[in-house]
């Protein structure tokens, strides 16, 4: 059985970071959901800290090409069966670093990708940034975003039980379940990845000419 690959991208800046903590919790919950009923299934979870790639991302914006380390991360993200994208909310939206990372990825590379969106913030007042900023970003990229987006405000880390909308752990579990289901579906139907060297899929020239004449 091919291993299932889950990649979590954390745009947290602090060390330690609550954004990373949320990414870890979501990754682990997803891994458990995937592995739970199928002991033979291998699940590979990989968490990326964009902080470590901050200058590489800035350089990519200036030069137009990724450093080897950034290229490796982009490849891991684009090949994943499921993506967990977690950002701190800065000035009412995703952080610039988070946006910049997705800006340097080819805008067709995440088409059809199951994505779980999540964010952290000082107060719960900014939780709809997930719906107003992150969800449209991934909709533009034609990714498939799971219905439950997970927001963790400072107070959530100290709240148990089931408050309005459910406690953080419940939301994590629900979102992880949704991502696991989509990732499984994708892994079952996705064609085997083409070798990287045959990456170009070119329309034969005669067809390109004919298409112009048809107009």
């Amino acid at each position, binding site marked *: 059985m091919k291993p299932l690959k889950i990649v979590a991208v954390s745009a947290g800046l602090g060390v330690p970071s609550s954004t990373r903590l949320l990414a870890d919790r979501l990754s682990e919950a997803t891994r458990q959901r995937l592995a739970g009923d199928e002991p033979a299934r291998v699940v590979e979870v990989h968490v990326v800290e964009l902080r470590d790639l901050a200058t590489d991302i800035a350089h990519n914006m200036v030069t137009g090409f990724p450093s*080897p380390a950034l290229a490796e991360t982009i490849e891991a993200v684009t090949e994943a069966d499921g993506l967990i994208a977690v950002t701190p909310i800065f000035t009412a939206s995703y952080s610039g670093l988070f946006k910049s990372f997705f800006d340097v990825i080819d805008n067709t590379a995440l088409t059809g990708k199951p994505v779980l969106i999540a964010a952290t913030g000082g107060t719960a007042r900014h939780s709809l940034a997930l719906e107003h900023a992150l969800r449209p970003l991934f909709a533009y990229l034609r990714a498939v975003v799971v219905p439950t987006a997970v927001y963790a405000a400072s107070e959530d880390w100290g709240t148990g039980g089931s408050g309005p909308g459910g406690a953080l752990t419940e939301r994590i579990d629900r979102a992880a379940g949704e991502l696991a289901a989509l990732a499984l579906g994708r892994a079952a139907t996705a064609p085997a990845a083409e070798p990287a060297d045959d990456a170009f899929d070119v*329309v034969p*020239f005669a067809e*390109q000419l004919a298409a112009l004449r048809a107009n």
Partner: protein
Amino acid sequence: MQFGIFTVGDVTTDPTTGRTPTEHERIKAMLAIALKAEEVGLDVFATGEHHNPPFVPSSPTTMLGYIAARTEKLILSTSTTLITTNDPVKIAEDFAMLQHIADGRVDVMMGRGNTGPVYPWFGQDIRQGIPLAIENYALLHKLWREDVVDWEGKFRTPLQGFTSTPRPLDGVPPFVWHGSIRSPEIAEQAAYYGDGFFANNIFWPKHHFQQLIRLYRHRYAQYGHGTPEQAMVGLGGQVFMRKNSQDAVREFRPYFDNAPVYGHGPSLEEFTEQTPLTVGSPQQVIEKTLAFREYFGDYQRQLFLMDHAGLPLKTVLEQLDMLGEEVVPVLRKEFAKNRPAEVPDGPTHAARVAERDAAALEEVAE
């Protein structure tokens, strides 16, 4: 194998003096650089085409016409000619005229340009970039090969009974390179026509260009123009040399750090590691350039970018002396070693006329 230089034609402030050359100074400097290229034994001078500041070369055949009159051997080319926004009829006329003036020492590199607003300024839509490149070149190709052309397309006024004059010199059109940084469609186009493919690899890592060139060679053979090894490949390079490599690094660093395109980005060290840029001794330039053959196969033309980022003319001329005296003679010798006999040399008008005549004789014999 041909060696030469290509220029972007940027007017850039010299970061070490704060002085910005005037457009007139820069244009005169480009001409001096072209004449120097012939003097030091290089084969090719190519100029970019731009229609916005800080670039000056908007009118390549005017510039190349002057250089043609002042040189004997140099092949005059472009890097690139905008096939998307220029009228293909005017390209056909301008370059055929230049071909006559220069007694055949002309070829041309097609490109799509990299400045968005140039499309609307010339009445075109950037989203049609690839279709424009395909249709316009199809017309240009026809205009150079058929004396009377009837033509109708998507982008340009139709032509009825049109003859592009002057006809190409000796009935053989200028050799065409198709330049691309990222589009496999252009590699496919070059392969379809059996034209050259120029991978302007100077700002990006090699892996991407290996894929493009592999695609081009493969499709060139599939279209029946020869073996993959016979496809016509050109590559870029970017170098700054001093006898002592530390001196080269010290002198070039401020120009690198402030350069258009990649300045204020990665360090000089990171960039030289990841792209063809070489800042060091002539020997280091030789080693890095020779490695291109291992990555891309035996190829036909190597062009170096030598004069951008505000480097003063005096420095550029010194660089060309070193390139012509210390680097290119070694490269010629080394690239010739173990080069299979079937791999063609860089394209010249004389060779293309001979090839055409040989093909005609063969046809008569049959």
